[in-house]
């Protein structure tokens, strides 16, 4: 028995398909190359896929396209045979409710409590009244506790988010995913602020949960060894294109050397760690007449 049955009723994952898809970032300059260029990829329901590649390869953009946050400029994207960008707005929102995207920087408001932040994963399935009540008194403490327990954070349940370390915050962000009513998990660099031991634990938990719930999981990873050892399938990306798409066992040293050509330091695992403290917003200067 696993946590999956305790947390949610298991619903099978979404399948997704990209055909010849290109996308560019809205903030990007018009002259710059598109972040994704002609990507074709098929992920079956209940499959776990790791995406590796040097920085700037378009991994994050790919996840944003998969999360229906960024419309493709060319090509098609289908989720369970639905074209998300052709759906009416309401249907698209419902579809988004079945996705969970964990960005690289954990999206937690600093002064919120961990329990609230984790339970926020359930918002797509909660009514307005229930969600407001849960702000005042957390709706399902045991569920939040169990989700945190999976990431060794149970004792931080009622702590404030800004009192956690960067790594702890990142794991809270992942625990939120366990509560989301999602059929597709999109996890962006879940380990950027974690030490090696914690990294392995966290990724093992994610993959285990995804398998138990038969969810589809797509994760981008900097740590190539973690990707190879925990994921059945690994996709290598470079310059906005798919370089290889293989079962983990078939990824060879050569594949990796070519993928990380001129980025060898990243292959060795030296990556920029996301800054620890959340940056405070600049205070607007307010003048008063008195």
């Amino acid at each position, binding site marked *: *028995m*696993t946590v999956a049955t305790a947390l949610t009723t298991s619903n099978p994952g979404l399948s997704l398909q990209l055909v010849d898809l290109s996308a560019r970032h809205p903030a990007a300059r018009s002259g710059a190359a598109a972040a994704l260029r002609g990507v074709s990829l098929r992920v079956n329901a209940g499959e776990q896929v790791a995406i590796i590649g040097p920085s700037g390869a378009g991994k994050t953009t790919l996840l944003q396209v998969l999360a229906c946050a960024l419309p493709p400029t060319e090509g098609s994207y289908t989720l369970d045979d639905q074209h998300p960008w052709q759906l009416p707005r309401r249907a698209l929102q419902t579809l988004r409710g079945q996705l969970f995207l964990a960005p690289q920087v954990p999206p937690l408001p600093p002064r919120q*409590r961990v329990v609230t932040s984790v339970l926020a994963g359930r918002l797509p399935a909660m009514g307005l009244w229930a969600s407001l009540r849960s702000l005042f008194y957390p709706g399902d*403490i045991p569920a939040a506790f169990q989700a945190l327990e999976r990431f*060794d954070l*149970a004792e931080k349940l009622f702590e404030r988010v800004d009192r956690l370390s960067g790594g702890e915050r990142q794991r809270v962000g992942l625990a939120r995913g366990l509560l989301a009513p999602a059929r597709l998990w999109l996890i962006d660099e879940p380990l950027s602020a974690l030490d090696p031991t914690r990294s392995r*634990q966290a990724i093992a*938990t994610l993959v285990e949960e995804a398998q138990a719930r038969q969810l589809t999981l797509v994760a981008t990873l900097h740590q190539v060894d973690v990707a190879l050892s925990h994921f059945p399938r690994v996709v290598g990306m470079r310059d906005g294109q798919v370089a290889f798409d293989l079962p983990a066992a078939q990824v060879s040293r050569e594949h990796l050397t070519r993928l990380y050509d001129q980025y060898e330091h990243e292959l060795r695992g030296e990556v920029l760690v996301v800054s620890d403290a959340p940056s405070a917003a600049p205070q607007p200067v307010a003048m008063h007449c008195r």
Partner: protein
Amino acid sequence: MNTSTLTPFPFGSPPLRDPAWVGRVAWLSVLVVLLWPLTVATEFKPWVLLEADNLRVSAQFISSFWPLAHSSEFLLMVARDTWRTVAMATVGVTLALVIAIPLTLLNTRVLSVSALSGRMARVPFLVRQAVRWLLIVLRSIPELVWALVFVRVVGLGPTAGVLAIALTYGGMLGKVYGEILESSGTQPTETLLRNGSGRLQAFFYGLLPTSAAELTSYTVYRWECAIRSSVVLGFVGAGGLGQQLDNSMKMFNGGEVASMLLVFVALVALADRVSAGLRKALG
């Protein structure tokens, strides 16, 4: 930390209750208990607004807003009073500068020669404290109260309003000028003073260049505030748009009230623009 995450049944016992619960309920009850006397003290009875009598009067007044008063005679009067309002603010701020600048120079610690060698001498220290208190008194008394006083001394008219603005704003400018000067770099000034230049020289060559833009910007902002103030001062008889507004309200002349309110909103918006533009131009 336990390492049981990967064992098949890893749960500790989840806490039953949110520990913050009691605190939240307590704060909420305190809030409600405090809110009650507040509503009593302010006679907060929103339904009064909906009583038939009041509703009729309000509806009558509001419906008389349209058509706006627009006879040429009235418009001329509004234009004249708008100018008087602006002029009152301008003169008030000018006089406030006359009050604030000397007081600031006396008050600024950086300009103290005796403080260079550690502690300030006794007499300058006392002078500074006196100036500080004077500034506090000047700005703590609302301009409306000053105006009430001066209306009784010099009679109705803009003189009272100008004086009221001058005193209150003199106190405010003096305080903020002091803060701006103290917060700018003191090194150049101290060097000048140590090398034997006079206080005024040190001020002009050391302090002013670094903080001139900020000082001007704040002054312009206060001028914008003074325009709002001078309208309010009209209500106690200092002339200008406020006084006309007060008269029209007392006569229940909605059309005139509405026109003047519009003019006033436009005036404030204009002053806001001009002030923002000026501050931007001054950097």
